């Protein structure tokens, strides 16, 4: 376990890893879902898999905002570039996500005014600087990001900026977890809860998972030691027959969340009755729209949006991978037609997407090993 030395506090990591082994029942198979894409990235990057016993399986969850957005919404957003004088703004993560007629980056190459912003506040500032243009911000993200869009909307209204709109694709994590638990082909023992979503929503919204579904959930930080500690906490609960919400990431996540952030969201957003998720279909009350008072800032109301449903490329199995039914490498396109350089599905685009994470660390590592094997057979 040479790589352990590269981490800080290696002795604590070794101790946590041995505690994981001590608590693991060798006769049992454990299936833990890490909900957050940041955790998925960390698991591959840190080689956490190698520290865990074989019978602990980590299932990658739906917590990658770019990955869960269905292609139809990308097409809808890009259709707005046909509006004369419109500036299309989005986070960098969105730029290479393929729509039916290309990605935002490809639209830019064809002459659309597509710009990367790092904050919704920057999109609003762009609108202020360009009063004769309309600036549309393609908003994505879970509860981590939605409050920033909310404050931007409140500011736009307060400052009377009229050439600005939001194409709202914010989604909420709890209904997605519920959909996964309701899915008949998904058997899970416990959850590693998202870290930064929980700084906003707190730990209380997870209580039903413990109480009604009888599954332990531990909100976790992102360091290797955090994630190992979280797995220890889950194993302890299972061993003692408990199902509770526990907070391993107390140094950042308050139990009650960020009330100011939640207030800003309830001032500006309402729940959509349903929303389509890539690979998971329609999930009721799983996404946010702008409240009616903000209709003038709602790109969907301001512009006519085709609202078409687009099925994913037939051979791509993004949905199965998103639900954790298939591992990335089990998809027929993985590593052949679909690579981070030429992504077919969104899970290959974002660094938090399980396909990109798997490709960048495991697949490349395996390819490298097979290349160097003949030269160094003894090692």
């Amino acid at each position, binding site marked *: 376990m040479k790589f352990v030395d590269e981490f800080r506090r290696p002795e604590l990591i070794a101790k946590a890893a041995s505690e994981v082994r001590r608590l693991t029942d060798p006769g049992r198979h454990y299936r833990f879902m890490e909900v957050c894409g940041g955790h998925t990235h*960390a698991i591959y990057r840190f080689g956490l898999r190698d520290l865990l016993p074989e019978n602990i399986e980590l299932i990658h969850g739906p917590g990658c905002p770019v990955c869960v957005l269905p292609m139809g919404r990308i097409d809808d957003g890009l259709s707005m570039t046909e509006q004369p004088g419109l500036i299309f703004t989005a986070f960098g993560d969105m730029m290479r996500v393929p729509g039916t007629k290309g990605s935002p980056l490809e639209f830019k190459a064809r002459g659309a005014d597509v710009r990367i912003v*790092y*904050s919704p506040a920057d999109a609003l500032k762009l609108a202020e600087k360009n009063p004769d243009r309309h600036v549309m911000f393609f908003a994505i993200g879970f509860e981590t990001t939605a409050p920033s869009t909310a404050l931007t909307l409140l500011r736009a209204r307060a400052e009377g900026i009229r050439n600005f709109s939001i194409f709202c694709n914010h989604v909420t994590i709890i209904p997605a977890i519920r959909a996964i638990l309701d899915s008949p082909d998904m058997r899970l023992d416990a959850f590693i809860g998202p870290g930064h979503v929980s700084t906003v929503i707190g730990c209380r919204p997870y209580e039903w998972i413990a109480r009604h579904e009888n599954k332990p959930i531990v909100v976790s930080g992102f360091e290797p030691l955090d994630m190992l500690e979280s797995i220890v906490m889950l194993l302890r609960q299972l061993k003692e027959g408990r199902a509770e919400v526990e907070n391993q990431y107390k140094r950042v996540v308050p139990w009650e969340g960020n009330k100011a952030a939640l207030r800003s969201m309830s001032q500006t957003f309402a729940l959509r009755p349903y929303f389509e998720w890539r690979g998971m279909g329609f999930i009721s009350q799983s996404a946010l729209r702008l409240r009616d008072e903000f209709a003038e800032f709602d790109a969907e109301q301001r512009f006519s949006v085709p609202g078409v449903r687009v099925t994913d490329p037939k051979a791509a199995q993004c949905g199965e991978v998103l639900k954790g039914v298939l591992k990335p490498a089990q998809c027929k396109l993985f590593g052949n037609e679909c690579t981070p350089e030429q992504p077919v599905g969104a899970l290959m685009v974002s660094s938090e997407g399980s396909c990109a994470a798997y490709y960048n660390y495991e697949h490349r590592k395996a390819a490298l090993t097979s290349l160097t094997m003949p030269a160094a057979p003894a090692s």
Partner: protein
Amino acid sequence: MCLAIPGRIVEILPERENLALVDVSGVRRKIDVGLLSDDPAQAGDWVLIHVGFAMSKISEADAADQMRVLAMLGEDEAAMQEIEGYGLGQGGDGS
């Protein structure tokens, strides 16, 4: 995009509500601190920043930890690119 970037509040700026100058590894940019309105940010506070907004206060030690996590994940360059890309200005130069 769920990884947050640690920074230190240099000063609360008077030019508009909830605007602060933050220092991230020597790079200074303006960010919005409106999400901390229940426990307002002050100069010297360490915060986690996400898409141009401070989302929570943290300790100095946790800020150092978080920077290390970003580096371990190979996301430190992207994080600095994000900070440098924030469009609300750099402060001190009239921007």
